[in-house]
């Protein structure tokens, strides 16, 4: 046989510990996993005979990782329909660079996220909540409508430790929370020293684009902004080519990029 070392493509069995249903379309699957994982990294959920799909880590525990996903494709649909807590599945990963949480300690930080993009930053926020810097974290979390709000328990916890703005794009009459796009609240964030302030912006491409306009208006340096990107992927390990943009591979060089670098990448 071959002496090629580990076959990274081999799916690794993992027990599904729990399923947390946020909305009808968005569930968190808690998979058994032991090993180093960073927020912003991703796993390939691997279902034999069905396929694989890359999902960012939304939570990290001592013996598990949380993967939060929307049912929008063949693999995710299958996952929603066919599995329950206690079942065994397969994973590959973690892959990608992830966020370096220490980068954001001890300074002011703005986090702008939309929808399921809470996943990659959830670990960052959780880490910072346990540090002295929590009070200088300003987070704007946007969802399409009140029914789409995810991680409600987390948001409630975080609201006590960080400066959290929760907003929805639109809401039925009588809704008491904030309404409006995330960009609407960027000008109001209280920042002491914008030159040293950092930011994490994760969400759909248009959200990132318009949030950046607002952040730059406030004087934030593009070098101090991190985003997390996503692309079609097959291998997750820099071989299949699908996620390449210019000379970068989202699966190994990303998915977390400095904005100043990412804006030079053109699909």
């Amino acid at each position: 046989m071959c002496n090629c070392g580990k076959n990274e493509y081999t799916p690794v069995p993992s027990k599904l510990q729990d399923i947390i249903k946020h909305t009808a379309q968005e569930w968190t699957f808690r998979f058994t996993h032991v090993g180093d994982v960073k927020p912003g990294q991703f796993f390939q959920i691997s279902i034999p005979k069905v396929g694989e799909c890359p999902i960012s880590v939304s939570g990290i525990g001592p013996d598990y990782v949380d993967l939060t996903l929307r049912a929008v494709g063949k693999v995710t649909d299958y996952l929603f329909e066919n599995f329950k807590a206690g079942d065994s599945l397969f994973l590959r990963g973690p892959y990608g660079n992830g966020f370096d949480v220490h980068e954001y300690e001890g300074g002011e930080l703005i986090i702008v996220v939309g929808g399921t993009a809470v996943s990659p930053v959830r670990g960052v926020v959780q880490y910072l909540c346990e540090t002295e810097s929590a009070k200088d974290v300003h987070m704007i979390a946007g969802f399409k409508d009140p029914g789409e709000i995810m991680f409600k328990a987390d948001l409630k916890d975080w609201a006590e430790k960080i400066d959290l703005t929760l907003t929805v794009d639109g809401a039925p009459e009588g809704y008491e929370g904030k309404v409006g796009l995330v960009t609407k609240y960027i000008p109001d964030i209280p920042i002491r020293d914008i030159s040293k302030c950092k930011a994490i912006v994760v969400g759909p491409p248009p959200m990132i684009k318009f949030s950046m306009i607002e952040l730059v208006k406030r004087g934030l340096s593009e070098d101090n902004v991190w985003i997390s990107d996503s692309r079609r992927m097959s291998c997750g390990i820099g071989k299949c080519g699908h996620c390449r943009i210019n000379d970068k591979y989202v699966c190994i060089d990303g998915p977390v990029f400095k904005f100043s670098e990412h804006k030079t990448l053109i699909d």
Partner: protein
Amino acid sequence: MGFVYKTEEFNKVLEVLEGNYRIFAPVLKVGEGRFRDTDVIRYDYISRIEDAELEERSDFSFKEILIPLSETMFYFTENEIKEADYDARPVIVLMRSCDIHAVKRLDQMYTGNGPNNDWFYERLRNRVKFALIGCGKACPNSFCVDMGSNKTDEYAFSIDVVDGKVYCDVKDDELFAAFEGAGGAKDNVEPRFVTEAEFRVERPEEVPIELFKDPMWDEYTKRCVNCGRCNFVCPTCTCFTIQDVFYTDNGRVGERRRVNASCMVDGYTDVAGGLVMRKTNGERMRFKVLHKVYDFRKRFGYDMCVGCGRCDTVCPEYISFANCINKLNARVKEVTENV
């Protein structure tokens, strides 16, 4: 050390080599071309040198031995995941200088990009030796000289068939006995290389970012039919897509395989939820061309394209990749000089 053989003598060399190796070479497949009574040259196993097509460049490259068009990775039964078997017998691949240069690019992608190597590639790669087919003439549409791939000394042995005689330069000690025993005359043999290709190309050193959205690519939106032939014949294209299937109605048994993918063909950038990153063929052309002569170099220090010219020859719409490189270069000059 070199040898000169008659054809029958060289076939004895092959016979001995076949004891340990399979010989993979370009073969003329009669009638298997696109159109009625047209042929195609693609790789297959041979036993006699006459069965190899050594004059004309193959339409499809050697790469099918290392990255099969369709390759099973795993078999799935109800409770088991099993790595697919493969034919572990060593292989000697007959290929031209440009293609030997292409191997370096494949190695780079599969074993030199990111922390993980490609297990399936490595297990095939480890059993392959490369033999050089000398080039008596420049191939149609080739620009290997300007890409620096027209010469190589990285081969186990070389083959030049001239006037019915087979000239071999043998470098690999493991194979030496097979060559020595076949009755050929010892001689100093130098494989033939071309020093003038069909086309000249000039590559830009830097490509300013504004050229990514330049109107020069619009032409290809109109002309290209996104069939992906340029990718499938390219000796340096490595992209693949993993697909899972189940065989039976009850869905219990199946496999995971990977198939060659093309950045020109629909679906390459589609993500779940409907987003498509590059919709127009012009954008896809730009993505491909810049990878071959710019982006890959930015990452690894040398260009990906080896200038074999296959993509030009195969294009059903007569789009010339070489010409596109030159157009790009001219456009870069225009843009940078006007700054």
